[in-house]
C-alpha cells in the first residue's frame, strides 16, 4: 500500500492535477498545477512549499552519540555545535559514498539525522558497544520545506526566531502552538527553511504557513520543479548522481566524496586524527591523486544548440524537464573520445541555458573546458558543444547571507 505524509490531506486539496510519483513508498506530487515552471518561479522569486516528509529520520542520544557520528560520517561532527546542522555523507571502507543526509545537532548528546534511504541497521552496527540510543523516528515527524526569497518574511510572522538563523543553523520554535524545529536548510539552492513538525500537528502548522504566505505569492511545488531547482543548485541526488556503494555492482557505479564534488568535506582528514569509516581509503585517494572523476557543471553552447535544431527544421526545445537518463561527454577533438558522463540535464529558466551535472576526467575539469554532450536530434545521435563550469551554477548571495 502506498503511504501518505502527514501534510497530504491538505496538500492534496491544493493539487489540481492528481499527478503523483512514489518516493520511498509515499505519494509525492510531481506538480500541483498545470505549470510546474510557475511552481519553480515561486521558489526563485517569492516562496514555495515542498513536502519532504518521506525522508528517513534517526534520533541519536546518549553520551557516545557524538563519537558514533564522528566515526560514521565523512564530515567531522565535532565542528557542528548545538544549533547547527551539517550536510554530510557516509562511506564504506573503500571510501565510496553510501548515502547523504543532514545531521542536526540539538545538544551535546542529541542529534537528528535525515537520510534518503533506510539506514538504521548500518548505524546500529557501528553503535555496538557505545552508549548511544538510536531510534528511527521517521514516522513521528513531517518535514515542510519553505523556500525562496520571501520565506523568511513569511515565517517570521509565525516565529520571529527565524530571522536570526544563519545558513545551516536551527532552533526550536512554536508554530501554531506546536513545538517544531526550524532550520535554515533546503534542497533548492535558495534562501529557505525547513520545519520539522510532530506528525500530529502537521496540518495545523501547514495551515499556519499557508495563511502566512498569503499575499507573498506562496505556492506548493512538486518534484518536477524541485529537480530543476536542485540541478541549478548543484545538489546531487542518490540513484541519479550516484548509487549507494553497498548496493552497486561495480566500481564504475561507485563514487568517492571527491568524485562526487564533495572533496571539501574532507578538510583536515589527511593530517587529522579522526578515525571514520573509509578514512584510510580516502587518505590514499588524496595522497595518490587517484580520483577518477571530478564533478562539474555543464553549460551548453546556446548558439550551437539552436543551430542544431533549426537546421533540422525543429524549434530549439527549452524545456525545464530534467532528462531521466545519462548522456556521454566527449572531448573537443574531432571524433571525440568519451571523457565523462552527464548525470542530470535540464533547461534553466533563471540561467536561460541548458545546464547539467556531470563527471569528467580530472584533467578536463577546469572551468571553461570545451566538451561535447551527446544528444539526439531528429532520431539521430549527435553532440552539442558545451563547457564545464564551477558548481553551483546558480548561487544567489541571499542563500547564505547573514540575516
Amino acid at each position, binding site marked *: 500500500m502506498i503511504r501518505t505524509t502527514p501534510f497530504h490531506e491538505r496538500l492534496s486539496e491544493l493539487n489540481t492535477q492528481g499527478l503523483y510519483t512514489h518516493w520511498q513508498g509515499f505519494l509525492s506530487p510531481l506538480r500541483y498545477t498545470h*505549470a510546474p515552471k510557475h511552481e519553480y518561479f515561486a521558489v526563485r522569486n517569492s516562496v514555495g512549499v515542498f513536502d519532504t516528509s518521506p525522508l528517513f529520520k534517526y534520533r541519536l542520544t546518549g553520551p557516545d552519540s557524538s563519537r558514533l557520528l564522528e566515526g560514521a560520517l565523512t564530515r567531522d561532527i565535532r565542528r557542528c555545535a548545538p544549533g547547527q546542522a551539517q550536510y554530510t555523507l557516509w562511506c564504506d571502507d573503500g571510501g565510496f559514498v553510501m548515502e547523504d543526509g543532514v545531521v542536526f545537532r540539538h545538544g551535546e548528546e542529541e542529534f537528528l539525522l535525515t537520510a534518503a534511504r533506510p539506514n538504521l541497521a548500518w548505524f546500529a552496527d557501528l553503535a555496538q558497544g557505545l552508549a548511544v540510543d538510536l531510534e528511527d523516528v521517521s514516522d513521528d515527524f513531517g518535514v515542510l520545506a519553505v523556500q525562496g526569497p520571501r520565506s523568511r518574511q513569511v515565517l517570521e510572522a509565525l516565529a520571529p526566531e527565524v530571522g536570526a538563523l544563519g545558513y545551516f543553523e536551527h532552533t526550536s520554535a512554536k508554530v501554531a502552538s506546536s513545538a517544531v524545529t526550524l532550520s535554515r536548510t533546503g534542497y533548492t539552492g535558495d534562501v529557505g527553511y525547513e520545519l520539522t513538525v510532530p506528525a500530529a500537528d502537521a496540518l495545523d502548522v501547514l495551515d499556519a504557513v499557508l495563511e502566512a504566505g498569503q499575499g507573498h505569492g506562496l505556492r506548493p511545488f512538486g518534484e518536477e520543479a524541485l529537480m530543476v531547482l536542485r540541478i541549478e543548485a548543484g545538489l546531487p541526488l542518490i540513484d541519479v548522481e550516484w548509487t549507494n556503494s553497498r548496493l552497486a555492482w561495480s566500481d564504475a557505479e561507485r563514487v568517492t566524496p571527491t568524485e562526487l564534488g564533495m572533496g571539501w568535506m574532507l578538510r583536515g582528514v589527511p593530517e587529522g586524527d579522526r578515525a571514520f569509516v573509509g578514512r584510510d581509503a580516502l587518505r590514499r585517494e588524496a595522497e595518490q591523486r587517484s580520483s577518477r572523476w571530478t564533478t562539474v557543471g555543464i553549460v551548453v553552447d546556446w548558439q550551437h544548440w539552436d543551430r542544431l535544431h533549426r537546421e533540422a527544421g525543429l524549434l530549439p526545445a527549452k524545456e525545464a524537464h530534467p532528462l531521466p537518463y545519462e548522456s556521454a561527454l566527449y572531448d573537443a577533438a574531432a571524433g571525440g573520445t568519451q571523457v565523462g558522463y552527464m548525470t542530470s540535464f535540464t533547461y534553466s529558466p533563471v540561467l536561460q541555458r541548458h545546464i547539467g551535472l556531470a563527471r569528467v576526467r580530472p584533467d578536463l575539469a577546469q572551468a571553461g573546458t570545451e566538451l561535447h554532450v551527446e544528444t539526439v536530434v531528429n532520431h539521430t545521435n549527435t553532440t552539442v558543444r558545451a563547457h564545464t563550469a564551477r558548481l553551483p551554477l546558480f548561487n544567489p548571495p541571499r542563500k547564505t547571507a547573514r540575516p
Partner: protein
Amino acid sequence: MTDTPTGSSDRRGADGAAAYDAIVVGGGHNGLINAAYLAKEGLRTLVLERNPLVGGAAITEECLPGFSFTTFSYALSLLRPEIIHELDLVRHGFMPLMMPSSFHPTGDGDYLLLGDDHDQNVQEVRRHSRRDADAYSRYHHDLDRVVQAVRPLFDSAPPDVFGSDGTAGAGFGPDLEWVRKHLGGVERRVMHDVVRLLTGSASDWLEDYFEHPAVAGYHASSSIIGSKVGPMSPGSGLVLLFHKMGEHDGHLGSWAFHKGGNGGFTQVLARAAQAFGAEVRLEAPVTAVLTAAGRVTGVALEDGTELRAPVVVSALDPRRTFLELVDPREMPGEVVDDVRRMKFRGVSAKVNFALDGLPTFPALPDTVDHFGGFLNIGPTVEYVERAFDAAKYGWYSERPFIDAAVQSVVDPDMAPPGKHVMSCFVQYAPYQLRGSDWDTERQRFGDTAQAVLEEHFPGFGDLVLHREVVTPVDIEARTGLTEGNIFAGEFLAPQMYLFRPSPAASRYATPLAGYYQCGSGTHPGGCVIGSPGRFAAQRVLHDLRRDP
C-alpha cells in the same frame, strides 16, 4: 561637462567639448542595447536620455508607495534570445517570470482559461466547441510554421534590394539571393499562409479554424494591439503574426513578466551597457544632431552643451530621427517624404490601477490562478471590431478592448502583501479626437474602461486605491513616440521590412554619413524586441570596419 573624473579626460575633444566614438540619442531599450553592443566592441559610447530614468516606453514607476506600475509596456516575449546571451543579461538580473495562464471571459459569464498543459487547454476549448478542440492544435501548428518561415527574415537585417546603400553597406546583412533561397525552401502551403497572414485580416484567418465566437475572439486579441485596425481589417493578420514571433524560453508566442516589470528589464539593460563601459546620462535632452561637410559631428543638448562624436545613433522614432533632430534639408527629399507619409496613428491607452485586493470573477470565486497572466477583455471578434468602429471616426470605444495583467500575482514585489497592481492596455483611443481633446476626456475615458472591468468583475470599483490614465497624448509627451504610436510607426505591410521606415533607409544607416537609426521605427519594429538596437550596432561596426 564639468568634474570629469580622471580617466575620461581623453573624452575631451580639441575644442573642449566631450568626444566619444558614438553617441546614442534616447535611452529606451533599443538605445541601451545599441550602446551595450557598441561599448562591448570597445567604442567609447554615451547614451543621452531626456527623462530622469532610462527605459522609454518600458519603465516601472512607483505611483503610490509600494505599488510598482508598468506605466506603458508591461509584458515580454519578443526579446531575441541572442541579446540575452551576447550582452550577458542574466548576470545583470534578467529574469522573465512565466505567465502561468491566459484568461478570456467569454462575455456570458463563462470563460476560457488556458495554461501550460496542451491537453488541458484542448479540453478547455472543447468545453465551448467540440469542433474547435482539434482545430486548436492545428491552428497553433500552422501558425508556428508561419513563424518559422518568416523568422530568418525577422532575425536579420533587410537586404539592400533598392541599391540605396550604394557600396557602403555591401556585405552588411544577408543579400537578396539569401532571401530568395530561404523562401524557396519554405513549403508551398506554409508560404500561402504567410501571405494570407501578412495581407489579410485576422478574422478571415481565424474563420478557417474556429467556429466558437469566444474561441476566435481570444485568438484575435493580439491582431489589433497598438494598431489602427480591427480584427476584420486587412492587415490585422500581420499584427497577429508579429505578436507570435516571440520565443520566450523556446515557446513560440509565449509571454512573460520581467521581474519588476518591463522597467526592471530596462534597468538590467542599463547595468549591462554600463558594465561594457557605456556611459548613460539622464535628463539630457538632445535638440539637434550637428553636422559639418555632409557628415555627423556630434549633438547639441537643450542646455546648449555640444558633444562630439563621429557616430550618432538615433534611438527615437523616424519622425524625430529624420525631421526633428536633423534639418530635413540635410536629407534627400525622398526619405523625408517617406517619413512624412508614414502612419503613426496611436490608438492605445493605459489605465493602471492600484487595487486593495484581487478582483472577483463570479464563475471562479475561490481561485487565483486565472490572474496569472493576460486577462483578455474582448470576448468576441465582433466585440473588438465594434470597439474599433469609434476610432475610425475620431472617438474612443464606449466598450473598449482591454488587455489586463496583474503582475503582482506572480511577482509579489510589485505591491504590498494582499494588494495588487493591474495594468490595463486599452483600445481604442485615437490620438486625434474629433471635437474634444484628451485633457478633457481623460477621466471619462478612464471611467469607460473601469465600467467594462466592473461588468466582468463586479465590485471592481470598490477595490480601486489609485487610477492612472495614460492617453496617447501622454505616451507621446513622455516617451517621444509620435502620436503615441506604441511601435514607432504602425505595423502596416508598406511600413515593414524593406520599407521600414523608408525604402531608401531601411538598413540602419541614413543618407547622412555617420548618422544611424536604431529605434522601433526600423526593422523588425516595435515591441520590446531589441533587434533594431542590435542590428544598428552591427551596421555601425560594419561601417567602421570598412571605413575606420
